[in-house]
């Protein structure tokens, strides 16, 4: 009976982590489609991401209710809630980024496609590593540091790429309008924020891991 509850919680937590991973992969595909001006598929990925975000919210709430109602892991419950909410922020950020593309339809010159793709890739790498770290935190907290280190690495790469992109845009004389430059900077910032959110989770995870060591 007790282990049945445990198994169900483990499954839900894993499902939530899979959704986080999927969310950033969908973001990647969506941005790719946007850069390639493939509107139909872009809309498809946007809708898929909205659906994922809804599912993740409902699983998160399920886990939280189960932990509260059955007074499970009382010592680490607060940490698990924070972890779930911070991971959920990553999914929200991914959805919001794609939504902004859909609403504001930024005009991105083709020569910046690679820069935006790279920035997206680095952010996704940071999220992938933080998902791995979260899985480890649940199973084997002593080995979390290894993945956390990789999160910081990819977050820094994303920052570097974002900065390079912004410098390039503001020194590009072919873009005449300042508003367009600011618009591109804004989207670079948005994608970079996905990596920042992953870093936030990593910061917390390293403290939770210390707390979990007996």
């Amino acid at each position, binding site marked *: 009976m007790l282990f049945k509850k445990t198994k169900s919680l483990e499954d839900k*937590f894993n499902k939530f982590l899979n959704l986080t991973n999927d969310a950033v992969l969908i973001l990647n595909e969506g941005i790719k489609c946007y850069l390639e001006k493939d509107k139909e598929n872009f809309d498809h990925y946007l809708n898929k991401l909205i659906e994922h975000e809804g599912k993740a919210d409902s699983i998160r709430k399920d886990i939280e209710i189960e932990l509260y109602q059955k007074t499970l*892991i*009382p010592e680490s419950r607060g940490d698990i809630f924070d972890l779930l909410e911070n991971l959920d922020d990553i999914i929200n950020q991914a959805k919001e980024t794609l939504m902004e593309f859909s609403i504001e339809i930024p005009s991105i010159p083709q020569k910046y496609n690679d820069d935006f793709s790279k920035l997206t890739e680095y952010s996704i790498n940071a999220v992938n590593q933080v998902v791995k770290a979260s899985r480890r935190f*649940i*199973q084997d907290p002593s080995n979390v540091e290894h993945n956390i280190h990789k999160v910081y690495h990819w977050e820094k790469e994303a920052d570097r790429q974002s900065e390079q992109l912004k410098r390039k845009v503001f020194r590009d004389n072919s873009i005449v309008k300042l508003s367009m430059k600011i618009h591109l900077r804004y989207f670079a910032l948005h994608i970079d924020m996905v990596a920042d959110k992953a870093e936030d989770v990593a910061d917390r995870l390293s403290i939770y891991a210390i707390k979990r060591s*007996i």
Partner: protein
Amino acid sequence: MILFFLSSGLFLGWSLGANDAANIFGTAVGTKMVRFRSAAIVASIFVILGAVISGAGASHTLGKLGSINALGGAFMVAFSAAFTVFWMTRLQIPVSTSQAVVGAIVGWNFFSHTQTDYNSLIKIVSTWVFSPILAAVFSALLYLLLKKILKHWKLSIFRLDVYTRIALIVVGAFGAYSLGANNIANVMGVFVPVSPFPEISFGNWFHISSAQQLFFLGAIAISIGIFTYSFKVMQTIGSGVVKLTPQSALVVVLAESLVLFLFASSTLRNFLLSHNLPAIPLVPVSSSQLVVGAIIGIGIIQGGRNIKFNTLGKIASGWVTTPIIAAVITFVALFSLKNTFDIEVYKENKEMSKNKIEVNINNDKITSISDEYFYNNQNIDYFCYLDENKNGNN
């Protein structure tokens, strides 16, 4: 009237249940790993079992220190010990019931001009010093072992939670058994030589001694203490006097329980003796000091962080101050009871010091009763009589 005289012991039992149950289930309940109701039921059942089944050993040692031979004296000894604990707790001086009871017995010895068995006294006092150290060693070793096991098993946080809850209840039950076995001597030990209850036998297979009935009564008082007042103490412990993870708490309780058990189990003592190993004295020890020792053990393994050396100093000072204060209070209280209320607090004609018994008995003739415990002078007289008759017949 008998119940009135026993009331001081029952009060000691109540306060033991109220305070010391928290040393067993405090962190588990305080951190909501175990419900108070479950903890109280498990603790009560196992305290009673421990007291009735294994309570005799430590009581015997207290009996050797001073065999109180009048109910009035036993009442005042237990009352003075309880008052010492209450008064020192109010003054926020660390105090242990075990130490107060020993001081009170020595106080009675002085008042009744009974010679104190200094061998027993030294044995008891050295145990006070040794037991927290032993708890520290046990907890350090158990901590390292648990860390290794957890590293190897790689349990998920949810699974670890379930195992820890089960372990906290199992170890808590063992802890409660050991607490009952070891500390019932503090509660009822002084009444054993003057126990008013007759022995009960159901055929040849079921036998409840007079002392066991006393221990049962004392254990019921401990259980009432657990149910009525220990929740508050458990909450205080759980919410942060010392912050422990549930796994560390498990190690602390297990180390504490093992030490309590070592100093209470006659079976273990006999096993060690039969294998020519040094026997562990059966002495009531302070569970609170064992907890402090166990936490320090973990602290040392973690690199000596969070060790409050002034706490250690306070405990060490308690080894001296508590018995002295209890002895003085007992002396004054016995004087008042005897002279103001004219209540008999000791019997002069029945007084038999241990030295006298040792001189009168030829050790070679009593091998058949070695390692047996007797709770009153009548039993010993009976065996002396048997020996004399044997000699006469030969």
